[in-house]
């Protein structure tokens, strides 16, 4: 294809997106659109899969059967969400094996929040309330993104995600209405998860290298800073309701702007974690890679069994 033809196709493509038309996998698309989507969707899928690990830590130690059933269901949902997203990503011509390979080699990233440890039961509450809360804010606008398979996967994810946040908040509420010690556990979890949750919404707009292009392709509808403000504005009153304190001395309601002002985020910490130096980066990757490697014989056996059965069926028919 000549340069002129490509340019022409690109113009038609951008116009379609501007008209809010959806792009489907077999439609012509600029290579950069394909690559950007593979990067973002796979990163999203990896986050769901790695996100199971910090919570999986507490399934066997949940304080009651009710909590255990809920946590199991939540972790199972996350596996499902990862799967919807991997499948959507594969429609762009990359294989599941390649996607896993990118995760395992460290080439692809996942959300930095999952590199923090879950040291008490209250962390299950804080993760559901804050981490899933921030995730929902990120994900709801994606239900309208331009790439059809991604948008459809996100509709399903968002439908399922709201139970995650509610179960987390309920855990926090129960702890906060409990003994002094239980309330202190809830406060401690908020102290540890608040700032990482704010970081989860991504670097500030000035630092975010992908924002402009992503806005154009409707991969993003609001900037990181707008999403972060929305998260803070909706979460602070919930902390008040719980009777625990957000660990930010600069946090203050601003009558003029109608938003909360908040303190400086420690972006050095964020970049350290992204670069692999968070408290649990190695542990998470080890858990993931060994699960994949140790499961290899099971996958091979299933394939061998399927092939044997197929041959038997053919032999019977002939």
């Amino acid at each position, binding site marked *: 294809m000549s340069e002129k033809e490509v340019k022409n196709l690109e113009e038609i493509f951008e116009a379609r997106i501007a008209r809010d038309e959806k792009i489907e996998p*077999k439609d012509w698309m600029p290579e950069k659109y394909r690559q950007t989507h593979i990067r973002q969707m796979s990163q999203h899928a990896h986050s769901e899969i790695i996100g199971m690990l910090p919570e999986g830590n507490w399934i066997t130690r949940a304080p009651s059967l009710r909590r255990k059933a809920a946590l199991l269901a939540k972790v199972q949902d996350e596996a499902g969400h990862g799967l919807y997203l991997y499948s959507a990503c594969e429609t762009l011509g990359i294989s599941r094996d390649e996607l896993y390979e990118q995760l395992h080699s460290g080439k692809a990233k996942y959300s930095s929040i999952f590199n923090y440890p879950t040291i008490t039961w209250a962390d299950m509450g804080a993760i559901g309330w804050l981490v899933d809360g921030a995730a929902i804010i990120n994900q709801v606008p994606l239900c309208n993104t331009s790439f059809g398979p991604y948008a459809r996967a996100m509709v399903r994810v968002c439908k399922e995600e709201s139970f995650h946040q509610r179960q987390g908040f309920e855990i926090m509420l129960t702890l906060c209405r409990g003994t002094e010690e239980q309330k202190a556990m809830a406060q401690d979890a908020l102290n540890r998860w608040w700032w990482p949750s704010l970081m989860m919404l991504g670097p500030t707009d000035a630092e975010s290298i992908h924002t402009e292009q992503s806005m154009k392709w409707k991969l993003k509808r609001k900037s990181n800073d707008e999403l972060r403000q929305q998260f803070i504005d909706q979460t602070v009153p919930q902390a008040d309701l719980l009777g625990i304190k957000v660990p930010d001395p600069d946090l203050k309601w601003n009558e003029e702007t109608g938003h909360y002002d908040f303190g400086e985020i420690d972006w050095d910490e964020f970049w350290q974690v992204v670069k692999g130096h968070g408290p649990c980066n190695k542990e998470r990757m080890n858990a993931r890679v060994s699960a994949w490697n140790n499961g290899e014989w099971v996958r091979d056996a299933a*394939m061998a069994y399927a092939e044997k059965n197929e041959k038997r069926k053919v032999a019977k028919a002939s």
Partner: protein
Amino acid sequence: MSEKKNWPLWEIFVRSKNGLEHRHFGSLHAADAEMAMENARDVYTRRNEGVSIWVVESKNITASNPEHNGEMFEPAQDKIYRHPTFYDLPDEVKHM
């Protein structure tokens, strides 16, 4: 990366309730149809989303090529006489 055979891809169709058609829900990898069915149940119907599931190996689907959408679908565009509104009738005619 290994060269060995990976689990193939399956397309999943779910009837959400009797009276409705099966609709495409998504896809997944599985070694065979039986496993595809079990996985489809776990992945796509965890909240009573379905009463019936079809699984079809993706390679068995023949899809139209969007690059040929012109010759494929445009011929229908100028055949407005296939629509009831093409025909002028006096207002007095009822129930038609």
